[in-house]
């Protein structure tokens, strides 16, 4: 039998297991069927219910505009899968090609896609995290319980961490006219993702909208009352704040623990892959039968010196899932690389924030259009004299131009593409926090750097 025959037989009646039944897993399953895979497809997910979309959970769900239950992902085709939901995978045996579930069941596969994503980083003291009215936001249930707590009109909401999620939640609270305190360990909101210069704009945005923003402080303790309800937070400077709701928004943890004994190169930064989404083993060899996609994958990108990058971006999950699915059912010579330029968006305090490229892969930043003071601008990021990313605040229509600059390694600082050239165009140090802070609140993590 030739390898073409083998592949044809696999496409006809092979077994594919997808671990992770969220955006990346669902899109991969749809793509597998679209590519003509007619074998058995098993979807394993730790949450019950149909795959749903997460971006609305920290935005329109919290303001009460959209019910949490209305976030189910649209389906593009029938995927005819067996769904094993409500039980997480607990192990992977690559000698016999089985996924082990937490309830002891074993699920055999010929090819496997790992799309287990991330979970919210919990508050570091378990007894304090368990207090009533202390929340994280990652799942639909989380968002629904926080929405209910906000609707009850708490005297104040404390948000710990001012990354994108924390900032969006603060924005939703202000839309409900609730008093909000945001405590951020770094120099400014979003500084871990966009650097301190743009972070200052985010800080200004928060303060303009009535947020009590405190930067450079650490929350050391969440205190409850006799009924076990959160009442007060303590800061490392000795201060305290009284509040009735606490939201812990300290970034995420990649769901890779179940792979610890698998022999795959999986750890706190995710699962190392090649750009074709093949998972690497601990010796750095690509596995032909095991693929990874979405938040949990870390792939080398030629635009970023082939360093491994993990992206907690919606578009990345979709694109990577399609590449992985294609490669799972295609001959080697037809494999696609996942090379698309990262794209990210957020909306907070009425401002649309969009980025292309990897802003954390930069040493300098310059405003190329608009002005920081107006909260309407484009800033370009540069690394050693070339453009590596751009961020827009309410100015997204030019991002395609900047994407082209990034993809062609255009010199930094770039020229303004329009006549509205800002008067002050001096590049400034980007102001990214050190690696220890970077792990919190950054939605793109470049690992393996020695800078």
């Amino acid at each position, binding site marked *: 039998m030739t390898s073409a025959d083998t592949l044809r037989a696999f496409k006809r009646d092979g077994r594919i297991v997808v671990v992770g039944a969220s955006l990346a897993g669902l899109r991969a399953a749809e793509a597998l069927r679209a590519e003509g895979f007619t074998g058995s497809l098993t979807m394993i997910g730790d949450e*019950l*219910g*149909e795959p749903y*979309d997460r971006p*609305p959970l920290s*935005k*329109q769900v919290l303001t009460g*505009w*959209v019910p949490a239950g*209305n*976030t*189910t992902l*649209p*389906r*593009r*085709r*029938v995927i005819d*899968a*067996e*769904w*094993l*939901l*409500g*039980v997480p995978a607990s192990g992977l045996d690559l000698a016999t090609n089985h996924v082990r579930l937490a*309830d002891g069941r074993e699920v055999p596969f010929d090819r496997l896609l790992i799309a287990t994503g991330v979970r919210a980083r919990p508050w570091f003291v378990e007894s304090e995290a368990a207090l009533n009215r202390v929340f994280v936001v990652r799942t639909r249930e989380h968002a629904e319980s926080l929405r209910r707590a906000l609707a009850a009109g708490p005297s104040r909401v404390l948000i710990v961490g001012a990354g994108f999620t924390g900032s969006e939640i603060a924005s939703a609270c202000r839309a409900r006219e609730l008093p909000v305190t945001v405590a951020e360990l770094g120099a400014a909101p979003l500084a871990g993702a966009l650097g301190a210069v743009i972070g200052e704009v985010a800080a200004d945005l928060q303060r303009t909208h009535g947020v009590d923003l405190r930067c450079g402080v650490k929350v050391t303790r969440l205190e409850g009352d006799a009924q076990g309800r959160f009442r007060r937070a303590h800061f490392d400077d000795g201060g305290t704040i009284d509040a009735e709701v606490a939201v812990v928004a300290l970034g995420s943890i990649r769901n890779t623990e179940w792979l610890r004994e698998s022999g795959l190169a999986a750890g706190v930064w995710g699962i190392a892959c090649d750009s074709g989404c093949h998972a690497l083993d601990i010796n750095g060899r690509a596995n032909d039968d095991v693929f990874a996609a979405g938040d949990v994958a870390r792939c080398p990108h030629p635009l970023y010196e082939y360093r491994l990058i993990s992206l907690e971006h919606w578009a990345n999950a979709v694109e990577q899932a399609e590449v992985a699915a294609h490669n799972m059912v295609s001959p080697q010579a037809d494999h696609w690389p996942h090379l698309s330029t990262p794209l990210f*968006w957020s*909306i907070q305090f*009425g401002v*649309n924030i*969009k980025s292309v490229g990897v802003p954390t892969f930069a040493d300098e930043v310059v405003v190329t259009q608009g002005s920081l003071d107006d909260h309407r601008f484009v800033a370009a990021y540069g690394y050693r004299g070339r453009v590596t990313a751009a961020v827009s605040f*309410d100015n*997204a229509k030019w991002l395609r131009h900047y994407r082209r600059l990034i993809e062609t390694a255009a010199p930094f600082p770039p020229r303004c593409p329009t006549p509205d050239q800002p008067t002050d165009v001096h590049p400034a140090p980007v102001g990214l926090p050190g690696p220890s802070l970077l792990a919190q609140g950054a939605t793109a993590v470049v690992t393996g750097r020695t800078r």
Partner: protein
Amino acid sequence: MHGEEALMYDPNPDDAQRSLVLRAAAACPVQAILVDWLEGRNAPVEASAP
């Protein structure tokens, strides 16, 4: 849809709005609006939960 760039929207609008949604999807210059075409989408998935 909400705001200039419509980044925030109601993902499951009322059926009364269906024709508006289909028109918006057809008009979107970058075809970014994905409309679910499956009948009975809200029927439970073929779940086999424990």
